[in-house]
């Protein structure tokens, strides 16, 4: 046997194993009905977020066109979800609002991971007063109800969708510090990490090649759950008038505007709320399913 084929066999074997592992995970995941429902909802949501302006029957209604002739029409074949107080098609606005919602979820979760994961790694690896300081600060942040802190931050910076996202991100990172620190602590003294150290791996290599990949599963699971929670949080801020400002097509703000038109014009607030519910439900079920597959001990 030549060395080339030996090498090829060596690289093929792990690849095949990884393929088999992936297939096993996919099969386990798809066996759960609720996980599949979650996946389907999330895929539909992503599709709408990507193509919302093309799917919407009245895309110009998203950003403050006005048509008083068609105001407060009930749901019909022409306007599936009815129209609002200035005659805007609510179905179009809900579809186009999906993109805003996705942006908010990704930004908040992304920033929280970017702040929380490095801090968690440092706290887990460093130990001593560094870890103590990081963890105490984390505890303090975790001891304030998140929504209240976010409101305080938006109150300081002024209402608006950018500030709302910033506030939510600043509230969200401590959860990741806790998670990653605990995981790092448990990995730090595993035999394989000791072996890597004994083979001369530096601290950076240990962290990025050995410890971090083993923290990925719980981070992915938490991120999926947090997408849903961040979407809820942003909608809550929008509802309070602290997030996106009407006529911007954001679901929470739409509910807030529609509130004044209950009970006779119920469709103004019913449909945006349903959109939030199904989106959050989708991400929660997806997160549950991923946890069952990736991190079965964390139940």
């Amino acid at each position: 046997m030549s060395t080339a084929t030996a090498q090829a066999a060596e690289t093929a074997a792990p690849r095949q194993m990884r393929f088999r592992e992936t297939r096993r995970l996919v099969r386990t995941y798809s066996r759960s009905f609720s996980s599949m429902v979650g996946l389907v909802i999330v895929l539909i949501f992503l599709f709408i977020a990507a193509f919302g302006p093309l799917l919407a029957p009245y895309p110009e209604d998203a950003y403050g066109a006005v048509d008083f002739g068609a105001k407060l029409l009930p749901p019909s074949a022409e306007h599936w979800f009815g129209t609002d107080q200035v005659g805007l098609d609510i179905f179009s606005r809900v579809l186009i609002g999906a993109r805003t919602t996705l942006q908010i979820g990704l930004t908040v979760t992304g920033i929280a991971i970017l702040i929380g994961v490095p801090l968690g790694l440092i706290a887990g690896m460093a130990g001593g007063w560094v870890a103590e300081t990081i963890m105490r600060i984390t505890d303090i942040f975790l001891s304030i109800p998140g929504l209240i802190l976010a409101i305080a931050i938006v109150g300081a910076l002024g209402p608006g969708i950018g500030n709302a996202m910033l506030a939510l991100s600043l509230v969200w990172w401590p959860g990741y510090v806790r998670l990653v620190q605990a995981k790092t602590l448990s990995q730090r003294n595993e035999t394989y990490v000791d072996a890597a150290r004994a083979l001369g791996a530096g601290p950076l290599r240990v962290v990025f090649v050995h410890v971090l990949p083993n923290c990925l599963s719980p981070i992915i699971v938490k991120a999926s759950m947090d997408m849903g929670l961040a979407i809820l949080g942003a909608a809550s801020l929008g509802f309070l008038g602290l997030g996106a400002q009407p006529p911007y097509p954001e679901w929470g703000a739409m509910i807030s505007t529609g509130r004044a038109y209950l009970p006779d014009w119920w469709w103004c607030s019913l449909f945006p709320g349903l959109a939030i519910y199904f989106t959050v439900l989708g991400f929660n079920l997806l997160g549950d399913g991923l946890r069952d597959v990736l991190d079965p001990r964390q139940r």
Partner: protein
Amino acid sequence: MLRLILKRLGLMIVMLLGLAVITFTIANVAPGDPARLAAGPDASQEMVEQVRAERGFDKPVPVRFFIYLGQLARGDLGTSVYTGREVARDIAQFLPATLELVLFSITIAVVFGIPLGVLAAVWQNKAGDHGIRLLAVSGAALPMFWLGLMLQWYLALELDLFPLGGRLGVFDDVPPKITGMITIDALLDGDPGTAFTALWHMVLPALALSLPALAAIIRVNRAEMLEVLGRDYVTNARAQGIGPFRIIAAYALKNAILPTLAMIGLRFGWMLGGTVLVEGVFDFPGVGLYAAKAAVSSDFEPIMAVTLILGAAFMVTNLLIDLAYALLDPRVRNQI
């Protein structure tokens, strides 16, 4: 036990200091001139300068922090720019209503959540279990302000089963203030009718507020029950012919309840935050509505004060839960 309490109290003081640092930082990174904000939009330049000197805004940041701590220690939470009222007095007025609502909500969540969690575990993978789990996943995904609106629309406006909002009807007499919680005050006053009216007013907001907590309690309790029901001592109890009800109540639930207890403490804090959303929907005059109004008008000191107070309330709850944990579980007690 005493050592544990002292240790936790000490930790709580440190955490409270940290909380004050956070609110102080937020207040100080706010764009704009704090003196002008505090003096109000119509103040003249002289008045702004006067406020600046009065409240110490002209001093360096660390000095200002200690002035802030001093104010907090004296119970001075600042003044609202818009109403000119003392924040501490406002909060003292509104906090009992919020506590009453949150206590009622957490009671609903516990009273329904624990049995539902147990039933779901007992009926694992049967129709009942699926139904309860659907309730649990929905409860975690429903925006509570929207749920509140929908309940109000359907049950109060359409069916007229419940009042629209507020704590009591316009023509009801408010009982003499003792605790500030109307149900308790009315009972102390020997007026169960008013207590019931007040409770009736809280049903819809409490339902909206309790659903996420209910969902969480069901989830945790179901998972714990499933685990405990698989343990050897439960099998053993079954083999001895002990009835299923007794096994669940006396053997399994007792051990499954601890993680649920921790979850209840956590959810208490989230509910305090949730009042900001729900109280507005039902025009319920508590600190949540107060904070929401203040936040929309960028009225600074009330928001910071509410953050502090609710943060402190959350810390106290967690302390109590930890102590209860230690009382119930000797392993936790001996660890410390």
